[in-house]
């Protein structure tokens, strides 16, 4: 008889069937840094892409009479040393600084504006269709000229914190959407190139080499300059993502090709082939799933590049333009000697960009380790 695999007195170890994904998840969870990065990213995307109107205390274009106001400090103890559990800010008074020959705003310690959560403010539509007017924080029953600017204002008196939140929406999305497009181009072309080989492979390879040999910035400039000036900001936005994706798919395509080439020789692929599996089945059942983990990791690690590319393009004035607001646009506004001298709080944008990029890198590193749960190969 066939030897029984489970024998009579076999020590039965507790076994829970774990799929590949659950193993990956299990290993990922153990990596605290990566989980932290992931949480930061989820928070950022949720706050900035889905509910920015709620998070931001004011509307993107809400101009006030306080241009270039410095950030108000959030306080619990007032000038008299009285403690209040509810944080507050002082009101702002306009003053002319003789030396700088410039209008500045100083805190008026006699006026306290307590900060409350969930206050009524500017009306908005979440995701374009859910109407609301509640904001995460602000001043309850704010009268005219009662504001809280935790990160100051810009030259038009718009709350800078709100602008960063709204700017994050475009910047973060451009990274994500751009990367999705890159994945599409890169993995399809890479997979086709690796699977079929021959002339197709030759062509795709030479083309990616050509693209990667081309210097980035001039290419961006040429392509971005080709966007007609009269296009609507949204069209420009999409064009820019497509340009970014177009320039960057080459590297991914090469990696996917390499993976497919090595997977193609795996015995399980040969087994499916010997059973008569069609090309489509081999591709979608056996080859691509094997590359997905790598693709996700590569993608995660290259989204920061996308975000930076958008930022630098916009900073150069080649990317998004006002009235669209992205981090790049905000940085461009801050990118003058004047701004750095007199409104340094506009550099808060940099902090947000850094956080986003570091979070992506932490997540990506964690994913890379976790995607290989069997330990080596």
């Amino acid at each position: 008889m066939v030897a029984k695999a489970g024998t009579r007195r076999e020590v039965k170890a507790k076994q829970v069937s774990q799929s590949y994904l659950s193993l990956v998840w299990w290993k990922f969870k153990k990596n605290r840094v990566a989980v932290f990065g992931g949480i930061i990213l989820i928070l950022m995307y949720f706050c900035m892409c889905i509910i920015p109107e709620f998070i931001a205390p004011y509307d993107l274009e809400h101009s006030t009479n306080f241009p270039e106001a410095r950030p108000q400090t959030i306080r619990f103890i007032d000038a008299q040393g009285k403690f209040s559990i509810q944080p507050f800010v002082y009101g702002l008074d306009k003053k002319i600084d003789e030396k700088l020959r410039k209008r500045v705003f100083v805190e008026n310690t006699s006026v306290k504006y307590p900060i409350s959560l969930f206050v009524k403010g500017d009306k908005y539509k979440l995701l374009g269709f859910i109407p609301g007017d509640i904001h995460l924080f602000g001043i309850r029953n704010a009268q005219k000229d009662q504001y809280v600017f935790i990160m100051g204002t810009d030259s038009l008196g718009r709350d800078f914190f709100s602008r960063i939140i709204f700017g994050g929406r475009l910047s973060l999305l451009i990274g994500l959407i751009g990367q999705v497009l890159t994945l599409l181009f890169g993995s399809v072309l890479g997979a086709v190139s690796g699977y079929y080989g021959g002339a197709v492979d030759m062509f795709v390879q030479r083309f990616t080499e050509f693209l990667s040999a081309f210097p980035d910035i001039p290419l961006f400039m040429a392509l971005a300059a080709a966007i007609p000036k009269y296009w609507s900001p949204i069209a420009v936005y999409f064009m820019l993502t497509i340009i970014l994706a177009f320039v960057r798919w080459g590297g991914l395509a090469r990696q996917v090709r390499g993976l497919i080439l090595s997977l193609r020789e795996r015995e399980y692929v040969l087994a499916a082939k010997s059973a008569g599996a069609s090309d489509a089945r081999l591709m979608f059942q056996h080859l691509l799933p094997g590359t997905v983990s790598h693709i996700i990791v590569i993608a995660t690690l290259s989204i920061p590049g996308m975000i930076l590319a958008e930022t630098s393009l916009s900073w150069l004035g080649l990317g998004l333009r006002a009235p669209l607001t992205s981090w790049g646009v905000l940085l461009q506004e801050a990118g003058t000697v004047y701004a750095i001298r007199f409104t340094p709080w506009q550099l808060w944008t940099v902090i947000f960009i850094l956080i986003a990029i570091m979070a992506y890198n932490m997540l990506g590193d964690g994913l890379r380790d976790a995607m290989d749960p069997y330990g080596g190969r």
Partner: protein
Amino acid sequence: MTEAVAVQRNDTSPKRSDIILDVKGLKKFFPIQKGLLRRVVGYVKAVDDVSFFVREGETLGLVGESGCGKTTAGRTIIRLYEPTGGDVYFSSRVLGENGKPKMVNLAQMDKSQMKLIRQEISMVFQDPVNSLNPRMTVGDIVAEPMRIHGKYGVDSERVIISLLERVGLRPDHLRRYPHEFSGGQRQRIGIARALSLNPRLVICDEPVSALDVSIQAQTLNLLEDLQNDFNLAYIFVAHDLSVVQHISDRVAVMYVGKVAEMADSDELYNHPLHPYTEALMSAVPKPDPKYKSERIIMQGDVADPSNPPSGCYFHPRCRYAEAICKEKVPEFRELRPDHFVACHRAEELTLKGV
């Protein structure tokens, strides 16, 4: 549809009528490419004019040193590699009329016909880690051939469960993933997959060489049991001579892409006719400390398949080589009944077996 490929076999073929696979002059050359333009500068003659046959329900062992082309031969038969030349006749039931087998030439077949044949020929692979897709459950892995051929139906899961039980796994293993199993169990999964379409020929490519001794014995026994139950024919590719002798009815010895000798297993091991077989047998370590063997040391290395020597490929290492061996490629001929050899001096030499 099969007119073109159904071929009348000529008279030089082995006489028996129960032949299931008849390989004739099979060749597989891999091009060596160089330079930017991938110019072909030569060929690796992995399989170079190989002929052998397999009878219904028997095991043919295919042995040889690494790089001798035994694995390539197995894969070329099932058209994982496109043959460069030669014919592979297979007695197919699927393509035959009213259940009668019909000889068809796999080497000439188009893709759709070949797909039908793949129900009758399956493969078992060497590496228990790499031969199962880590992202599929055992059930899906075993069911895959059925799905490919559109034969997965309502009661297929029951069939798969009985198949798993047949190879010594439990029904609850169905939803598990390959990494939860030991090497021996994975090899059983691979065997179950190979059997899921009731094939008549299974090509086993080093199925036990990555397994521990005790697991190897279990797996060999399982393969033998399955052969008896389902009347399977095996091509058993391996480098371990003792394993091959144990499982095979007949054995073909390959050297640098050619078959040197083919005979009944006992006959081959005890009365080899080819000097290479003799040397190979003498080199096998015998698990018996009292056995003192006279070892024949082969000079030099295995010939380079991209640049083989003239005449008989074995002559530079052969201690019986003569002038003719350098000049003429020996003919692969039936010297004794059912004992084929490719050596000029096979008639005159008396060689020692194990």
